[in-house]
Every structure is written in C-alpha cells, then in structure tokens.
C-alpha cells in the first residue's frame, strides 16, 4: 500500500519550489508573458531544471539525475500547477524522461537531467495510455516523414521522440525537415503545436515491441502525474477563493460567512482531499512500479480532471465580477484545468479503462 503522506524531504522540496515560483513566476507575470505571445519562460526553466536540479528528479543518479523518483516529481508538479507555470516539466521531465528511461538512453537522459536540453514525445497531448494507435509518421531508413497534431511542450524542445511504424526515433528539433506550427489554444500556459516532418533525419532509439513499451511508459507517467498538476491547480483555486470570501464584505459581513458560499467551498475541500489521495496513490504506484499502476492512473485521471475544472469554475464564480476579468489570473487556471481534462485522455475514457481493469461487468 502506498504511503499517501508527504515525507519531510518532500515538504522541504515543496517549500523551496513554492518560494522560488512565488518570487520568479507570480500569476501576474504569467499573464503578462501570455499577453506577450510566448508564455515559455526560459529563465524560470533554467532555475528549475538546472540550478535546482529538478528536471532530473526521476533520472537515475548514474546519469547525473537526482536519484529521487516520481513521487518527488509529483510534488514539483503540484507546485507548478499551483503557479500555472509555463514550463515543459510534464512533457520533458516526466513523459520524455519516462520514455528515455524505458530505452535506457544514457546520452539524452544525461542532458535532460542536467537541464541542458528538453525533449518531447511526438504524440498528441490528448493521447491516452493504452493500446498503441497507428503512428502517423513513417520512417524510410533514418528519415522520418509525417505529421503529428496537438503536441504539448514541443515548441521549445531540443529533441523530439517520434514513434513510427518502424520503431522509436530521436530527432533534433532544429533539423531541416522539422516544422513546428503553433496552434491557437484555449490554455495559454501550455502551448500546443503541430509537428510536420519531411524526410527529417533522426536516429533509432528502439524497435518493435520495445518501442511500443517505451511510448506506453511515457504516456502512463504523463497521465499519472498530470493528476498532481491538476491537484495543484485545484488547491490554488480553493485557497485563493477562501482568502477572497474572507476579505470581500457585503451587507457588512464577509461574503464567506454566507452558507451558500461556505457549503460550496466545503464540498470543494472534500473533493480536493480525495483528489490528493488518488493523485498521491498514482504517483506512488508509478514510483515503485506497482502492478496496480494502470488502475491507479486511470482512477487519478478519471477523478482529478473534473475536480480541477470544478475548482476553477468555483473560483471564477465565487470571485464575482473580478473573477471574470482578464486581469485576475482565475481564467488562466480555468483554461489550464480544461486543457488538462483532455490531456492523456478524458475522464470518460479513463472511467471506461478503469471499468475494464477492475472487471466491472459491461
């Protein structure tokens, strides 16, 4: 049984990450970056990945990693969710790292751990873990051609990990033949892009079933840990709203003293407490390679995505007029929650997976 509590080390890690994010990436700065057209914050990524050594948390120590694991990475993601930080942690330090761990690629893992490079799995952000779909990229020798739509954390990635019918390839993103086309997305803090490959040269990381296993490992890690990011989004929404209803006065009393608001927030608190348990369980299972990981992942994704959306909606609503303004960061959280609800498969899809996994009669 996974221990759902946070250890002393995890608490210290959380404190450090939160302190850094509140100083280096407060919500108003995230909003200003989004308005500037490109939310990606390279300085923030350098601090997080290289200086604090957090990109390598799940990379083995022999490759220069932190020698920690997915539980610690999950704590970082909770804080990144709380800050809707526009950095490619989920795509590079989780999904791509899990793929590269599965194929044991020393060179790339070393670069990722050092924060010297980021990588992205060339799969649509909405791809759920599960039976592999037909790759949309084909390989002729080491040259790849095809299109992948709606890829997250790829716009600024240095290396693309591309699944093909002929195995898994690594392609440097600045290679001729690689096109990255930014999409107009609802979620401003996690930009997506379409990838087009026209005989782009790469090198093979794995072939056959090993390739499929590596991709599945990446998608499972992404789905399991996205739940922690969603938890962070939901927590920020609740905390910020509670603070607001305590200080916003109407009819000579704080609006939070009205039961209609109090009860909605209490319900949200309960949902978030449950979301924390399932997200921690998923991260714990992933960390120890527990055979229950597919169940824990499907459960976390089926549960946490709707909680994050609900929390963000309540945040917008209970803030009254100010919650609907562009200047208030609530909309960034609502949009992040909405995009996360599609990421790595929708809650419906994960419920269907869960039903099969736990032998519910159809």
């Amino acid at each position, binding site marked *: 049984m996974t221990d759902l509590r946070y250890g002393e080390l995890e608490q210290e890690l959380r404190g*450090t990450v939160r302190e850094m994010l509140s100083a280096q990436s407060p919500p108003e700065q995230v909003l200003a970056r989004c308005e500037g057209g490109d939310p990606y914050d390279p300085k923030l990524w350098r601090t997080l990945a290289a200086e604090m*050594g957090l990109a390598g948390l799940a990379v083995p120590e022999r490759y220069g990693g932190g020698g*920690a694991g997915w539980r610690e990475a999950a704590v970082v993601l909770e804080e990144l969710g709380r800050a809707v930080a526009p950095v490619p942690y989920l795509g590079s330090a989780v999904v791509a790292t899990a793929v590269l761990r599965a194929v044991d690629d020393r060179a790339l893992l070393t670069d990722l751990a050092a924060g010297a490079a980021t990588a992205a799995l060339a799969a649509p952000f909405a791809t759920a873990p599960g039976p592999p779909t037909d790759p949309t990229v084909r390989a002729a020798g080491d040259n790849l051609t095809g299109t992948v739509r709606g890829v997250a954390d790829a716009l600024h990635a240095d290396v693309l990990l591309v699944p093909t019918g002929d195995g898994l390839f690594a392609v440097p993103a600045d290679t001729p033949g690689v096109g990255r086309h930014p999409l107009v997305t609802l979620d401003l803090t996690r930009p997506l892009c379409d990838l087009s490959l026209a005989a782009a040269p790469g090198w093979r990381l794995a072939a056959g079933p090993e390739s499929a296993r590596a991709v599945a490992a990446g998608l499972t890690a992404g789905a399991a840990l996205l739940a922690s990011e969603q938890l962070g989004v939901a927590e920020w929404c609740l905390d910020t709203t509670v603070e607001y209803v305590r200080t916003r006065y109407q009819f000579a009393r704080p609006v939070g003293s009205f039961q209609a608001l109090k009860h909605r927030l209490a319900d949200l608190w309960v949902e978030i407490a449950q979301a924390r348990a399932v997200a921690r369980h998923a991260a714990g299972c992933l960390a120890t390679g527990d055979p229950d990981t597919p169940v824990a992942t499907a459960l976390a994704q089926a549960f946490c995505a709707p909680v994050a959306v609900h929390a963000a909606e309540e945040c917008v609503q209970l803030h009254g007029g100010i919650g609907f303004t562009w200047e208030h960061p609530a909309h960034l959280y609502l949009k992040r929650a909405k995009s996360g609800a599609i990421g790595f498969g929708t809650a419906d899809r994960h419920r269907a997976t869960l039903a099969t996994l736990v032998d519910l009669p159809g």
Partner: protein
Amino acid sequence: MKTVVLVKQVPDSGAERRLRDADHTIERESADNLINEMDDYAIEEALRLQEAHGGEVTILTMGPTQAAESIRKALSMGPDQAVHVLDDALAGSCAVATSAVLAAALRTLSPDLVLSGAESTDGRVQAMPHMVAERLGIAALTGARKLTVGGDGTLTVERQTDEGYEVVTAATPAVVSVWDTINEPRYPSFKGIMAAKKKPVSVLSLADLGIDPGEVGTAGATSAVVSHQERPARSAGQKIIDQGDGGVKLVEFLASEKFV
C-alpha cells in the same frame, strides 16, 4: 579560505509580528520563522568565494531550538557545516551580549572571513557586524555591494552609502556585511536538500564557550524594554467636500501639518 556566515532566524517580516506582554520580547513560537533575508545574500557570497577560491563555509547561528530549521535550510544552499549556539540562558540577550557570544564562538572557529547580512529584519540595528569585529579586534567592512578577494588575500569592498559607494580594503581576517545588491542568492537544489540532512551541526552551550550565563540573556542585558504598545489602528481620514473652497481647505490642511 575559511568563511563563517552569521545567520539569524527571524520572524517573517511579511507577516504580522507581535511582542509578548510578559517580557516584551518577540513572539517566536507562533510566527513563521525564516532565515533573515539579508543573510541569504551573505551565504550566497560565501559560496561564490568558495567556488572561486576553495576553502570551507560554516554557518554560525545563535538562537532557540527551532533555529535548527533555518540552519538546515541554510545548509541546503551548500555550506559545509554549521555551529548552533543554543542555551536557555540566552533568551532576551541584548546586542552587546549577543556579540560577545558570537565572538566567543568565532574564536573557536578562527575564520579568515566572517560574512553577515548588513541588518536583520527584526532588530534592524545594523550594529552586530561592527560589534563582533571590535570584540575580535579585526576589521569591519560593512554594507558591501561588492566583495573581491585579491591574490594576497586582501579584501576589497564597495561600501554602499547614501551618495554612492566607497572602496575600502582590509587584510584577513575581517568581518564583511552585505546588502541585497551584492548578488542573487541561489535556491536550494534537490541534492542540496538531501545533502543538508547529513552535514554536521555542532551545538555549543554557554559552558562550552566559557561564558557566564549571568552576562547574557535578560539578566545580563545592557538595555531593557520597559513597555510597548501596538501601533494604533489607522483612524478615518478627514473628508473635505468641495463647495468651491476645496483647494483652499486642502492647502490649509497641508499648512497645518507644516507640509507647505
């Protein structure tokens, strides 16, 4: 080079701070205690000097049991070890007594360089670096915005003043206090947080330092706080309704307060 950084745990200056009614000392139990902000810059400067010139960095803290938390936090940034002066008799020590204790602890460490923040966010006296240097009979280069170490070990400091800066030099050993303009402190890395748990922290009592408990703490304080009261709540302002004479009334108000 052997560097000791003086680190003080203080109540969060961003939160509300209170004094205890009984002895007029600051309420530490309920407050969120942090490393004094300016000391972070001193630690960073010590680590940069270590990276450039080698040597070792030691954290020196005097404070109650919960100061151990701040010591770990400081160690997670990268220093090698820490010394915690911990003794119940120290509670309520004045600046003069504190400087005696810190100086005694520094003598056991015999550092080449003592770094500290230029002031603490709770006391804001800015006297500790001078007092410690005086007791040790070494130079005090205070309020630094830049520190360089020459080949012969000479310290050169750009000393921040209201008008600009002064360049002062001294031979080691010396005390240097720094402002937040000197560098950008690092955040602890994950490996740093893990390593901090294994770093040695030696705890020294007054007996270890050969100091008579009667000379420190509330008993030995050279100054005493006799009373305190909370800042009065801000009262409602005076409203001036403009009936053609608003401007005149405003100027009258400013004149009554001697602003014009």
